[in-house]
């Protein structure tokens, strides 16, 4: 996957530190190459958080422009990937929050009126894997942006806790606790789904 100009940019086969330096000096093509090798990954991460390809597209585009604009301010180029992840995750959270502000107040799981929820009748005995996965996804859709981001970074992206803490701007201990809370919220949401 390459972005706009990267396909023909044979002259940009430099190592990443050099690309970062050139991008930070304002070479769009260098940034384009850097982004092209990461675009699928950050798009998948955005889809995982937003659960919607159109929203993920918006988030990735917004994050890419933010990263380009602010790259000259990034002093430690070795932190480019966690820094980019941070911007992408924030863009996803922003997209989700804007939706919620339009859609109205988030429903607390503890007060959910099950009568209004999509019905899901598990089959006799154990739920088969496909149905179970679908139910977990619906439960995930009910979580807030921060919980979604945390769960995706930890379980899907499998990022180290220290990096997640950096992305979420919280101490590692707080992230551990919030992960536990997010997982519990997912389980509670799943319980509601399976009633």
């Amino acid at each position, binding site marked *: 996957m*390459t*972005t*706009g100009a990267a396909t023909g940019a044979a002259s940009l086969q430099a190592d990443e530190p050099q690309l970062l330096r050139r991008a930070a000096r304002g070479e769009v093509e260098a940034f384009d190459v850097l982004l092209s090798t990461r675009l699928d990954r950050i798009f998948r991460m955005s889809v995982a958080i937003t659960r919607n390809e159109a929203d993920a597209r918006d988030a990735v585009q917004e994050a890419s422009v933010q990263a380009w*604009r602010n790259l000259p301010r990034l002093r430690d180029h070795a932190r480019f990937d966690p820094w980019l992840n941070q911007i992408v995750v924030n863009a996803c959270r922003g997209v989700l929050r804007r939706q919620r502000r339009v859609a109205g107040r988030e429903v607390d799981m503890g007060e959910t009126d099950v009568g209004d929820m999509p019905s899901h009748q598990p089959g006799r005995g154990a739920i088969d894997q496909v149905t179970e996965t679908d139910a977990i996804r619906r439960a*995930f859709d009910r979580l807030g942006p921060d919980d979604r981001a945390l769960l995706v970074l930890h379980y899907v992206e499998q990022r180290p806790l220290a990096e997640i803490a950096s992305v979420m701007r919280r101490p590692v201990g707080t992230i551990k606790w919030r992960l536990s809370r997010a997982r519990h919220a997912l389980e509670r949401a799943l319980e509601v789904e*399976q009633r």
Partner: protein
Amino acid sequence: MTIQLRDDQIRLALAPVAGVVAPDDLGRDIYEALLRTPQSRSPLASLTRSPGRTMVVLLLMTVLLIGLAIAIGAQPPDPDRFEVTTYRGGASRNGVMPGPGPAGTVSIGFENQRDGAIGFQAMPIVSGGVVYLGDGAGYASALDEDDLHELWKTFLDSPISNTSVLVNGTLVVGVEGGIVYALDPSGHELWHFNTGSRIAGSLGADGTTILVPTHAGKVVALDVADGAKLWEVRTNAPLERGPTVEAGVMYVGNDAGQLFAFDLATQGQIWMQQVGVGRLVTPLVSEGVLYTGTGLLDASAAHRIVALDARDGSLTWDFGTDSNLPLYLGAAGPDLLYASSDDGNVYALDRATGEQRWLFHTFGVVGTGGTLVDDILYVASEDHAAYAMNAETGEEIWRLPIAGGPTIPVVVNGHVILGTDTGMVQQIVGSADPEVEP
């Protein structure tokens, strides 16, 4: 039915369908957007690339800066405005702010999405009609208090995760990289001091002495006039929370659960008490009683609010919850102490006994305590809402959605100002004129 998910179940469900790739035209759209987007860079950086013009441009800039400084300096502080110049509203960290808060029906008045900001953890401070903020991207910014438009911003190289302090018109900012910067009212550096150690706790002040907590376990005292180091005191473990000052005594808690009292005149240690394990909450002192919270960042520790005699550190009472989740301090009223928790609750405790008087539930972590103005407690929760409640009864007065996980709400001059972890600054206003005590 209680469900407990396994890691692999969560991973399988949340991973995008295999083979998801970015749409073919996304890269092109981004590229075209980049071509239309200028990069944000320091004007000085671009100057270095055109040395032939450097002297002329520098001369012009100097003239402009002098003119700007004169213009700003000529603006007298607005005497009708109240100010909040340090963490939790004052050196004693008692969470009481001057207000007034918004009256009538509340709404978001103005907001400002900070370009490039990666979230606010640090409480804003407000003085002379200006809101000062530090963000996770390393910018110190000044916004107009009335409409939140940007007055200036300065890049300080390293994230700002603590609340700055304003002393004699000088904004003093500590960054995670360990450097303390002093900025003038137009955002220009007056001096800087490298502590050599991470700064995560909020800065304190005692008169013109700036108190800087460091990860090396020291509080470093600097002269606000020129950044000269005056003295330092040591504790035995990292300081990730800031100092509290009242009546010439500095109280500070370290990451080993130890609380210290130092005489600011002599820098002598008055007492030290082991009040818990792990990180302590920034102490709050009021009427001779010192409060802190124990066990932050250690899930196995006891999370308790403790009240101590400020004279010798002896324990008066402690309070915990069934959930044993982290507790934070907010404010101290005449009779009640307000605390909050990761369990989403705000607790009002009897200051004399520690007994719970009332509880207010929100739907997210309340890690920012609460702000007290007269008989109203203002709280912002990670359920992305701000609340005002009757401080005596806990009865909700209003609630309003906000843009993200919040900082401590600053209540001053008829509005509430807060930052969020999404880099938004918001101002909550009321439909009626607030009542101001003469």
